[in-house]
């Protein structure tokens, strides 16, 4: 359906054809090797560009090397070098075949001084690193566009496209990935609209276009969100997984369903395409099980050999995003079966059989950021992980990618300080804080939003003396309140 709607729109179709043509032509271009190089010679940085470099390739080059605003486009397209010279560049060659410009790499005066040296070598984040994906708590994301195809992704660059507005004098792209108005990006005019490639990591982003100074959402994007301050922004998910199902040409509808969408059978509609069905989505780090629903028939992914058993005496297909952790249980070599069971797999007891080794059991399993409870089911009997000191009741407690550190100053003579809150089910004996200097500290992963917690100092529950925010609880003793921003 989406394909039909899109093709009806001529400008979008033209854009698509251009993109496809560019895609197909790219390898040929690469073979012809239109020069495009940034190098260092004799203490100078030197840029060599073929005069016939395409506008898209030049845009990508400028974006990659942070060269916006120095006038490189003017030199390539109009032979004008004033701006470059103003920024200290020499024009070493500028003819019909090639452009070579260079600039001496200067030296900071005080780099031998310790503070300057440390500062100089600090990581200089890219714009994408400065304004990363807003993935807090987002497990699954997908795009819904009308009148145009989803933005093309090539070499980790997403080509944003604003259809129409071809009479506008200037269009800027602003979003969570540019710090909004801090670093808006200038889009390029084509005959069907405005385009700009932007390097983005997989995840969720918000964006708007600024057309001659007016901020607008993307009318062709069906997914938008209010930021809670009265602004509506378009939402774009930079996808990282392309679910595909080959064949089934005669199927009327195909859906994707899995642990990432609580097994809703009809929320993720796959699109027909050449030789099958597909659906690109964003998935956060973790391990997921899924199936396809082909005209109401549930089938595992025939192209994916990795499966986990399910409760219907069948199997679900498995996909892992991110690096796996190795869960290990030493010993118990005479056990018949050991299963890994945890909050991360909905406590399904028959899904994750561990692999027998000569000295115990193990299972690689990928988890995203978060706090998890788990245990081992040894011949049907649950036990915590003996190698992990933190427990919630009879389960082990695991923190992946902590993003917040709780601190309790003082209490130097306390023997035991425990952190307890909604993030560990208010367990009174799980998170033992560590004494460091003049404070007790512990780091956990907290999702965006509100959290409540207390400290337990040698058995006494107290609110956080360093946090003025608290609310009454059932015992009317008060819980400290913490908000984690998105």
């Amino acid at each position, binding site marked *: 359906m989406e394909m039909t709607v899109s093709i009806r729109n001529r400008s979008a179709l033209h854009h698509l054809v251009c993109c496809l043509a560019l895609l197909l032509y790219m390898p040929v271009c690469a073979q012809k090797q239109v020069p495009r190089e940034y190098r260092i010679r004799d203490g100078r940085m030197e840029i060599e560009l073929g005069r016939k470099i395409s506008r898209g390739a030049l845009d990508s080059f400028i974006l990659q090397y942070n060269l916006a605003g120095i006038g490189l486009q003017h030199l390539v397209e109009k032979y004008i070098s004033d701006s470059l010279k103003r920024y200290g560049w020499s024009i070493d060659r500028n003819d019909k075949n090639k452009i070579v410009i260079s600039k001496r790499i200067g030296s900071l005066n005080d780099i*031998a001084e310790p503070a300057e040296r440390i*500062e*100089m070598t600090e990581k*200089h984040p890219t714009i994408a690193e400065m304004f990363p994906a807003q993935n807090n708590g987002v497990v699954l994301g997908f795009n819904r566009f009308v009148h145009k195809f989803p933005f093309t992704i090539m070499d980790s660059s997403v080509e944003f496209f604003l259809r129409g507005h071809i009479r506008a004098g200037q269009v800027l792209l602003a979003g969570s990935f540019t710090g909004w108005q801090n670093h808006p990006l200038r889009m390029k005019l084509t005959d069907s609209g405005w385009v700009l490639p932007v390097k983005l990591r997989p995840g969720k982003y918000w964006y708007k276009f600024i057309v001659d100074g007016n901020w607008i959402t993307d009318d062709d994007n069906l997914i938008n969100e209010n930021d809670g301050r009265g602004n509506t922004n378009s939402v774009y998910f930079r996808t990282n997984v392309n679910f595909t199902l080959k064949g089934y040409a005669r199927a009327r509808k195909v859906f994707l369903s899995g642990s990432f969408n609580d097994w809703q059978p009809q929320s993720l509609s796959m699109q027909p395409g050449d030789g099958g069905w597909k659906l690109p989505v964003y998935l956060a780090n973790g391990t997921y099980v899924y199936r396809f629903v082909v005209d109401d028939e549930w089938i595992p992914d025939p192209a994916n050999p990795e499966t986990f058993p399910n409760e219907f005496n069948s199997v679900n297909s498995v996909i892992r995003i991110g690096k796996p952790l190795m869960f290990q249980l030493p010993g118990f070599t005479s056990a018949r079966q050991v299963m890994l069971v945890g909050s991360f797999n909905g406590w399904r007891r028959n899904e994750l059989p561990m692999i027998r080794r000569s000295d115990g059991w193990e299972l690689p399993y990928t988890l995203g950021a978060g706090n998890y409870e788990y245990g081992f089911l040894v011949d049907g009997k649950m036990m915590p992980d003996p190698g992990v000191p933190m427990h919630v009741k009879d389960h082990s407690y695991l923190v992946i990618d902590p993003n917040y550190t709780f601190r309790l100053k003082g209490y130097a003579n306390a023997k035991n300080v425990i952190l307890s809150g909604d993030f560990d089910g208010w367990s009174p004996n799980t998170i033992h804080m560590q004494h460091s200097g003049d404070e007790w500290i512990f780091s956990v992963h907290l999702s965006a939003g509100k959290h409540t917690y207390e400290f337990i100092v040698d058995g006494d529950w107290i609110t956080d003396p360093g946090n003025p925010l608290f609310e009454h609880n059932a015992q009317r003793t008060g819980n400290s309140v913490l908000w984690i921003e998105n």
Partner: protein
Amino acid sequence: MLRNGLIILLVSSAMAADGPLPEHRHTAAPPGDQVVTSDSTTCIIPFTRAGNLILIKGTADTTEGNFVLDTGAPGLVLNLTYFRKYAASQTTAEENGGITGSVRSANRVQLDSFSFGGMHYYRVEGDRISLAHIENSKQVKILGLLGMDLFRHTEMIIDYRKNLLYLHLIKRKESVSYHSAQLDDTTAYHTVPIELTDNKIITYGDMAGKKLKFIVDCAAESNVLDSRLPAKVFDHVTVTRRVLLTGSGTEKVDALYGDLRDIQLGGGKVNSLPVLITNLEQMCTAYNDGCINGMLGFDFLSLHKIGFNFVNQKMYIWK
């Protein structure tokens, strides 16, 4: 002028102990040189991190807090913010250079005692400068930098994976023979010669037939390569992006990030080493021993467990 200044300050930076030393402590006191004591043969010092900087708890007289381990700094550096009350014994300025090699305002102050992780120093001198930029950038209170002069008589092993620093104060009698038990298995690591010049750790790499001189600097987050190196070196560099470095005041200069391929370093070939490429001309004036070609920072050092014997002048890089 700078060279003379450096010599003066290096001499004045030597630490001495006049008073009685605590009992049951190991000492290393070459004649006329600094005196250091440690509580035990080997100190195992846990560290935390601010970004990629190693933070170690220390006590300067009565002031406790974080110090950054900085093998790129020649000696102890104290943050002006927390040590204003100390009288300056000597001013480091452009006229006389300084231990920091700086032309900015810095001065020498003396602490009665300084200790961290079982290591103790008495009447120790340090350069007092502002470290506000680093504090602001890292959002951590930083009292100072632990530079090389504090470690000249030690074997140091940095384990980034376990966040542990192993320090052994090498006594004169064991200078030649001593090594940590972690170094018993000689097949587990490469041994690379180092030089200590102006209290800087110098090691060499080889790239396209060119011998490259590097400072080993654990407070440098990025590896650094001098932009003035010959073209044959940069034939092995892929430039990945351009950045603007901001110096003191409003000074800004271009620099590039790149990947250096196939450099012989640390006893083996490194297939790809991320580097910040900038002009290190100003470094030349800061050192008696001429220019350096680059710095090996966190991006290299954190790849493996790494150790140094500053007495025998060796670096150990675990495989």
